[in-house]
């Protein structure tokens, strides 16, 4: 798709490049994209952990702004890529916490960092069957699927976010769809959605 620049719009890439010498310019990136990144993190982790992951996404992005590929006019895939890594780290940390049962004594040090996972968020809100299908996917597949289904990225944007070739995205999605189909085992999607209301 040809990108035409609407009048008066300054590309993310231009802003990020300028922020290398003038850090305050990075504020524009934050104000443009915070809502979207936070929303995605909240869908995957719940609102409390999402605040932390969201904030960290922008600080990591800020620290790495000098390495941004200025050929990419839209910073969203880059930010989603960072957020995806942080969400994964969050899951790992969560798993370690569960495994070791090492809860910190001061309740407000870690308790609000709720032990929610994609599966739990989904299961609470909607169908347990899709939740378990999602939970059964390898992390990389789940990241890809949710970037497309929950963040509405295009295949191209998801490829950029995860730094894999477009062909890999296509073949991985093909595999993911098969897995979900199998996990749902002949359940009629229309009926399942009905159940979930």
């Amino acid at each position, binding site marked *: 798709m040809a990108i035409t620049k609407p009048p008066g719009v300054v590309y993310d890439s231009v802003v990020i490049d300028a922020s*290398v*010498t003038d*850090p*305050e310019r*990075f*504020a524009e990136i*934050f*104000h443009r994209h*915070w*809502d979207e990144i*936070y*929303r995605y993190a*909240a*869908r995957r982790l719940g*609102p409390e952990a*999402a*605040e932390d992951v*969201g*904030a960290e996404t*922008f*600080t*990591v992005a*800020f*620290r*790495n*702004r*000098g*390495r941004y590929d200025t050929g990419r006019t839209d910073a969203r895939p880059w930010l989603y890529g960072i957020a995806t890594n942080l969400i994964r780290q969050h899951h790992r940390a969560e798993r370690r916490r569960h495994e070791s049962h090492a809860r910190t004594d001061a*309740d*407000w*040090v*870690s*308790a*609000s*960092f709720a032990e929610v996972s994609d599966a739990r*968020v*989904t299961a609470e*809100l*909607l*169908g347990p069957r*899709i*939740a378990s299908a*999602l939970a059964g996917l390898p992390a990389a597949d789940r990241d890809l*699927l*949710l970037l*497309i*289904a*929950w963040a509405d990225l295009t295949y191209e944007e998801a490829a950029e976010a995860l730094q894999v070739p477009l062909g890999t995205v296509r073949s991985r*999605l093909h595999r*993911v*769809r098969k897995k*979900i*189909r199998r996990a*749902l085992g002949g359940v009629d*999607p229309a009926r*399942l*959605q009905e159940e*979930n209301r």
Partner: protein
Amino acid sequence: MTDKEIVLVRAVRPADPPHDPAVKARAWARLHAEFTAPDTAPSPGARRTFHRSFGRRVAWRLVAAGVVAAGVAAAVVATQVGGPAPEQRPAARTVAQTLELAAERIEQQAAPTRPGPHQWIYTEAKSANEVAPGNRIAMLHNVKLRTWWRFDGRLMASSIGNGKLDMTRVLQPGERQRPGHVDDGYIGGPALWDSAPRKLYDYVAGLPSDPDALLARVRHDYHDSGKDVTTFGKIAEIFRDDRVIPPKKQATLYRALAKIRGVRIVHNARDYAGRRGIGLALDTAEEKTAVRKGLRPTPKPDVAELVLDPRTYAYIGDGTQAILSTAVVDKPGLRG
């Protein structure tokens, strides 16, 4: 996307989080703290990367300063005919001489005692960009901001102009807001915490009193790549953030700056309030080359990383902030 499975997964997309502007405000405060506290990246990997980009940024602003210095020197010669007082003309002095004068002047001051944990560091400043008190998302431009930061770092009070005092809790890294506790008044993040008064005071007070040893310590602590860009940036940051530097350490910091290759004097540098002073800047060959090749835009004039009062040699600000007044007080709201 017409694939049935993806449509299905999309259908179970959790609802949007509740709209809460305080969440964005806190995230913004965390990011904003990074803008001025560059050496506190949490992970080693991030730290390296960040230093690189910070180095680029500092070097860049510094080259700006260097270029201007040349221009100003010429201007000084030209206006000399008009007859400003010769002793007001530091152009004749080398960086080392100027900073040695500064060090000698500063180290004569009586050392105040370390503030108590519940005393407050009062600062009145003008700053190019500040987070509005009360965790509102707002960039304040060219306003007087009074802040009282409790020495232990845990509480911060601020007011814009003569506005009311807003109290904010400051979370330590890893600390979270108490669950169920409704309170918008807090900010946090490692970068902010690292500039907290007690943490910074103890770091600076613990630095060696020998300039070479001090440089070695800062280089080591902040993983300098060998070009001293990070080290210069860290020392500039100490001046920017620390309002209670013990005079002996401040003198050592000046002498240490004089030993960093590429440090220059920017004559008639201006701080953010427009006050003229002795500017310090760092020049690097890479940045000069980048400017010459057109890879970097032509820098702005009058830019220095530190601006010193030309008479007292106290730090007064830089291109993005101006310290108008500061004191150690017993209660927020007091101005010493």
